[in-house]
């Protein structure tokens, strides 16, 4: 089976990464009191680096191995497959795993109970193993097993702070979503197995008539798991909950795993159902608009980031939809562009979102709140966090020269090129409309992230806690800060060397589109690195010759107060007032209501007290999910009547079931 030396070493690297994580799990489970958290973090880091190097040496070839052959899940063995598509995701897992490992010791040091520490380490290791094996799974059964391990361990991570009502609710919502998605995936897998007679993921082709149902199941499963409208409601609840460092893994990879599944089966499986393409584009579009709009209105820093994930998952889904659409029309160039855009944006978004979540975790650690109304002015006390969060925000708004600009540009280019391709007029009209919608979403996300950076880090502190915030537990930058710096550097490096990154992704894109003549670096012709260099030179020369020319004459003074005396921090713009003008434009969707109450004798000119309140009712939750939940509640309370507790009745049920089975057995 294993004869090529590269195959052997790559397989070994992945297996030993898993083994090391398993060892970490065992040590954290057994040797509780004595083991230092630094040792466990070292094990986690070692596993992540092994995964990264395994991805590096197998980046352009397909390797099939079964080192875990002694594990058999009844229907199929735990075969592993490393193909070009899983390599970039494995690399992302390695990178984010390293960041989590670096950030972990200072997180666990702050936890007061031994139980919580054990919980953290055990679940993180299981989560990592689950994700790695999901990426490596070669057949449907192994995939489902590890998918469940990943889902359940991440649900347990969401519930880490389970004493709080908020965490309970989040874990419950997340569990519901993962149950639905697993059920749908299982259904799709069974359907495909029935069609093809094989469990191997690569044997399934979605070009046939019979595969349509399975493809729809998969699409909805992925939408549920990735948090695409209207199945995204769990996402803003669950994403903020996992403990600091693991929130990087959670936010950067959970959604991406779902997208990975979609790419592996529908794109690589040559799905040619137009209806799937339309559904993906429609859901993706609504999701991107909805996500960014709610992100903008959000007052909680981590929830804001979570809604922004909804937006980006939507954009990725539209790109996948166009890839399928172009495949149906035999437009190879556009299919390639769309697949590359979807893949690159998935990876970039994972990286950036992990960076931003680590930044939010750092803010939460320093200020003990995520409410934007209590933050402000953190740039002074937390310069490193601010810098990293700023870089992350630039990137997620797709600003040149960052990495997300390149991937967003590819998305734009996909739609733009479709607008003059040989496609039906309606699809071309749709693609130009999408260019406009993407611009709109882009402007909204700019508003959203200028709000996040501006309100949290700039201005004056809005609370005492924010004024006294301390960035790190040690004198220098500690693990959490170093992890952020690592990811920020990765963002900038990918952004300034996009052609190299795209060359690295080219094998994966070739696998997705079967376009053998693809040259990765030719997809993105803009010399971002050079532009950044020119920009840097210009900025520094302006700084030297104009601004810093007579530095002696610069004096520091208070912010201008109109001569009324010192400004209260309550005069500052808050998060909700910043986004209020936009909220008013979309008040129908947001259900935004403002009530103003002015009281006092001569209340028009000399009010004694003014009270302004804004309310937002989440429309989807109240109009769609609450009735559905009501039906479920009613059904379950009706079913309770069957369960009387009397043994006679239960014996009757057993008897009736037996009669029914005998009847069915003899008559069918």
């Amino acid at each position, binding site marked *: 089976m294993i004869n090529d030396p590269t195959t052997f070493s790559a397989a070994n690297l992945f297996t030993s990464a898993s083994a090391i994580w398993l060892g970490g799990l065992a040590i954290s489970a057994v040797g509780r009191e004595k083991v230092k958290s630094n040792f466990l973090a070292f094990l986690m880091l070692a596993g992540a680096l092994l995964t990264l190097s395994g991805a590096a040496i197998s980046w352009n070839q397909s390797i099939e191995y079964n080192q875990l052959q002694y594990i058999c899940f009844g229907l199929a063995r735990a075969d592993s497959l490393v193909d070009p598509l899983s390599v970039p995701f494995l690399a992302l897992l390695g990178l984010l795993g390293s960041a989590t490992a670096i950030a972990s010791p200072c997180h666990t040091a702050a936890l007061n109970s031994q139980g919580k520490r054990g919980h953290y380490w055990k679940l993180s290791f299981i989560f990592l193993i689950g994700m790695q094996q999901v990426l490596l799974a070669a057949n449907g059964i192994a995939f489902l097993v590890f998918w469940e391990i990943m889902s359940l361990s991440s649900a347990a991570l969401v519930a880490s702070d389970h004493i709080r009502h908020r965490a309970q609710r989040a874990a419950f919502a997340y569990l519901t979503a993962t149950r639905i998605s697993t059920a749908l995936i299982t259904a799709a897998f069974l359907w495909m197995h029935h069609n093809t007679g094989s469990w191997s993921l690569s044997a399934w082709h979605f070009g046939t008539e019979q595969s349509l149902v399975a493809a729809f199941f998969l699409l909805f499963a992925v939408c549920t798991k990735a948090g695409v409208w209207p199945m995204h409601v769990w996402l803003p609840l669950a994403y903020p909950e996992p403990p600091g460092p693991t929130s990087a893994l959670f936010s950067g990879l959970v959604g991406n795993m779902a997208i990975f599944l979609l790419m592996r089966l529908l794109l690589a499986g040559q799905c040619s159902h137009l209806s799937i393409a339309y559904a993906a584009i429609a859901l993706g579009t609504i999701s991107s608009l909805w996500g960014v709009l709610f992100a903008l209105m959000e007052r909680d820093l981590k929830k804001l980031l979570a809604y922004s994930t909804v937006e980006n998952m939507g954009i990725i889904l539209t790109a996948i939809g166009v890839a399928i659409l172009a495949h149906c029309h035999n437009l190879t160039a556009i299919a390639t562009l769309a697949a590359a855009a979807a893949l690159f944006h998935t990876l970039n978004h994972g990286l950036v979102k992990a960076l931003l979540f680590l930044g939010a975790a750092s803010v939460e650690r320093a200020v003990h709140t995520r409410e934007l109304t209590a933050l402000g002015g953190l740039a002074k006390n937390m310069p490193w966090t601010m810098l990293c969060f700023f870089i992350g925000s630039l990137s997620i708004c797709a600003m040149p020269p960052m990495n997300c600009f390149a991937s967003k540009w590819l998305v734009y280019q996909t739609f733009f090129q479709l607008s003059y391709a040989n496609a039906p007029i309606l699809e071309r009209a749709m693609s130009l409309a999408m*260019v406009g919608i993407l611009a709109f979403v882009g*402007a909204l996300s700019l508003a959203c992230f*200028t709000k996040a950076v501006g309100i949290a880090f700039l201005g004056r502190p809005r609370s005492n806690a924010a004024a006294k915030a301390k960035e790190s537990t040690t004198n220098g930058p500690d693990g959490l800060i170093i992890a952020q710096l690592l990811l920020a550097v990765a963002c900038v490096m990918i952004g300034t060397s996009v052609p190299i990154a795209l060359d690295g992704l080219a094998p994966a894109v070739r696998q997705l589109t079967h376009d053998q003549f693809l040259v990765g670096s030719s997809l993105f012709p803009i010399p971002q690195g050079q532009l950044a260099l*020119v920009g840097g030179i210009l900025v520094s020369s302006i700084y030297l010759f104009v601004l810093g020319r007579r530095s002696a004459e610069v*004096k520091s003074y208070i912010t201008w107060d109109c001569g009324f005396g010192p*400004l209260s921090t309550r005069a500052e713009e808050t998060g909700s007032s910043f986004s209020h003008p936009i909220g008013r434009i979309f008040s129908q969707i947001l259900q935004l209501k403002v009530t103003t109450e002015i009281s006092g004798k001569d209340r028009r000119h000399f009010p004694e007290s003014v009270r302004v309140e804004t309310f937002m009712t989440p429309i989807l939750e109240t109009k769609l999910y609450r009735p559905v939940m009501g039906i479920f509640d009613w059904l379950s309370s009706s079913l309770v009547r069957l369960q009387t507790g009397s043994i006679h009745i239960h014996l009757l049920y057993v008897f009736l079931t037996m009669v029914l089975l005998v009847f069915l057995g003899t008559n069918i």
Partner: protein
Amino acid sequence: MTSINTDAILETLVFIAIFLLLPPLLVGIIRKTKARFQNRIGAPLLQPYFDLLKLLSKGETISKHTSWIFRSTAAINVSLLIILAFLAPWTSLRPFNLGADLFLVIYLLALTRFFTVLSALDAGSAFGGFGASREVTLALLVEPAVILCLAAIGSVSQTSDLGVAFSFNNIALANQPGLWFIAGCGLFLASLVELSRMPADDPTTHLELTMVHEAMILENSAANLALVEYAHFLKILILLGISSQCLLHAIPFFWHTTELILVLSSIVSIMILAASIAIIESVAVKLRWTKLPEFIAYSVAMSIFCVFIALSKNLN
């Protein structure tokens, strides 16, 4: 061989001279025209230059609450707009072919906005926050119009490189006066909003709760303010330049004329647009904040017309 080189060098020098020196003059033209409309003599045409020079020699005051964002925004914005001036097709004189990608141009403009908004929030004053909040709202409404106008043009010429789409050798766009005209008008209306001119924002007031751009730069002073102003002037040049180029393409005469006339007329047309901004500001009133989406809807509607024309043009 040498003569070609000298030509290229000469073109480059002229180009750099135009984009470094023209922007303040445009503002001078706007102010002078407005003054004449109000029956005043007004400040000299070159007053913006004098203002910039004076600002450069003053001492700077910085709020103690600010971070590095405030300090570096002006420098970053000027650099970005200089890069944009080399990329974007705001004049028909383009000595370099750097590949002006449509989406790159839009996102570089968005990047300047990102920094401006953050620097407005940096000092923690109520004005800066108000201005920033309004700026992002306006940007959100205008952005789709701008990108759709340009994308429609790009779609007809089947390239996202604006340099190619805006060259007068592009046969695909030669007989499309309607598309060019509507795109030009749409872009001009959008630039009024983007440049914080009259129906959207009043550039002459300070301390009004209606203002956008002036509120954001309230904390800037001296050299920093000079850079901010200069960046804004450059933005006027680039945005008006792009819309004037669209309008020039709509006139068949310019497709068959010499390079020199083209260059001269593109500069003159930018000045004419600047003067028409002044005329609009003299005869129109500033719209109420809540009425602005309706104004921007005109621009969006024009961009949608452009899209329809582009789609029908490529009908196969």
